[in-house]
């Protein structure tokens, strides 16, 4: 996190805000809701309160504006600059200006007003741009489902460094941005995807293309806005050019979620930890706790004689967090350890760190 130069901050914690006008792109009640939610992002982690007022000299004045709106920082039409805000202070200090020519929305279409407002209010309170790609105060727009939004730890640390902690026995915490070369990095799920490797972690995905040295870190929502975070298992069915993702209690587009029991799992199975599909045999392996099932993609049914104990057929690899198959080997991830398993000899042939794919 970065303070605005000069460390400006409000001298009071009980601030006021005024809404000058509304965008025509959203219902007024949805705009009010987005503003309220955005203010709560900060008031729930720092001892700040925001009182709505019609008073002209409210601390934070929120308005939608076009192009040149007399603050020496003209907007640039659709896309590009979405909004800006001013550091704490009298007059224009603390004010938030939103570009009326943007496609504001309350969901993943266009630009989500709540996300942009929450970011700009960070400036209104004295924060500058953070270079943490997962932070709310990172300069570029990144959609997150407002219902899943949790203020990241970097932003919590920043605002509390300015205004202190809230008066609560347990302080709020937020997600930390995964670092590809963090030796303690573990994964929720891993899958191949048309020759690339996708590692899922929280609301992030680390993407590794075999031809690129660096690893790309993105929000899952950047590619798939309707997907939830916290993917639990994933595998690619290369035959069908399909990637299947598993998460307990998913809420995704029409026709989904499909109950995993249609695959043949007993009702006692509530979630899948990991999965991989063997392209040559057309068999897909599902790992649940200390057991695994084998599914025949051609017959579309579970093979007889399952579940079996993982340790019996794969060795001492423990519970499987994530798994994928590439170049004829299966890679099992357990915590920060990765096992390379040879399905032909049915032996673990090597053990390495979970982050070995990232050229650290």
């Amino acid at each position, binding site marked *: 996190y970065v303070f*605005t*130069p000069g460390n400006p901050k409000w001298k009071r914690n009980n601030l006021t805000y005024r809404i000058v006008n509304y965008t025509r792109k959203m219902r007024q009640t949805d705009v009010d809701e987005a503003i309220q939610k955005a203010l709560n992002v900060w008031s729930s982690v720092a001892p700040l309160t925001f009182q709505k007022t019609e008073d002209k000299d409210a601390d934070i004045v929120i308005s939608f504006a076009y192009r040149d709106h007399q603050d020496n*920082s003209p*907007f640039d039409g659709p*896309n*590009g*600059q*979405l*909004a*800006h*805000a001013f550091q704490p202070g009298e007059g224009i200090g603390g004010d938030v200006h939103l*570009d009326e020519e943007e496609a504001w929305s309350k969901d993943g279409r266009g*630009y989500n007003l709540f996300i*942009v407002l929450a*970011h*700009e209010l960070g*400036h209104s309170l004295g924060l*500058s*741009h953070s*270079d943490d*790609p997962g932070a709310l105060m990172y*300069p*570029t*727009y990144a959609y997150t489902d407002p219902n899943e939004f949790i203020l990241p730890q970097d932003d919590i640390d920043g605002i509390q460094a300015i205004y202190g902690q809230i008066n609560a026995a347990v302080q709020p915490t937020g997600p930390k941005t995964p670092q590809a070369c963090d030796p303690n990095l573990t994964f929720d799920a891993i899958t191949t995807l048309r020759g690339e490797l996708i590692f899922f972690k929280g609301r992030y995905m680390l993407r590794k293309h075999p031809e690129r040295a*660096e690893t790309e870190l993105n929000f899952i929502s950047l590619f798939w806005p309707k997907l939830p975070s916290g993917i639990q298992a994933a595998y690619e069915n290369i035959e069908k050019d399909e990637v299947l993702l598993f998460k307990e209690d998913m809420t995704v587009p029409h026709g989904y979620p499909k109950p995993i029991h249609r695959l043949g799992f007993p009702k006692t199975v509530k979630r899948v930890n990991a999965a991989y599909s063997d392209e040559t045999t057309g068999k897909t392996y599902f790992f649940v706790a200390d057991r695994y099932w084998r599914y025949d993609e051609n017959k579309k049914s579970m093979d007889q004689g399952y579940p079996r104990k993982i340790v019996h057929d794969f060795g001492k690899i423990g519970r499987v967090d994530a798994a994928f198959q590439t170049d004829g080997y299966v890679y099992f991830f357990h915590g920060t350890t990765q096992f390379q398993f040879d399905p032909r000899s049915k032996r673990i042939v090597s053990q390495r760190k979970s982050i070995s794919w990232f050229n650290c």
Partner: protein
Amino acid sequence: FPLGPEEKDEGQTINLVETYLQNFYNLQIDHQPRVRHGGKNHLVEKLKEMQEFFGLEVTGKPDLETLEIMNKPRCGVPDVQQ
């Protein structure tokens, strides 16, 4: 891979880079003819500063990744402030 910027108009790229660095990295451009002082190229310096901020490879050149970031929608507050 997306097509590289070389297929785009060179001038368009330079304009994008200059505008971006003026807006968000305090690049001062006065468009006066000026003898180069000590070889210092402010635009390259500012471009490196931007690449460092975004965790990109610091090349001082408007490479593909840098242009991708510059084309992303974003907040209008500068990344570096006086």
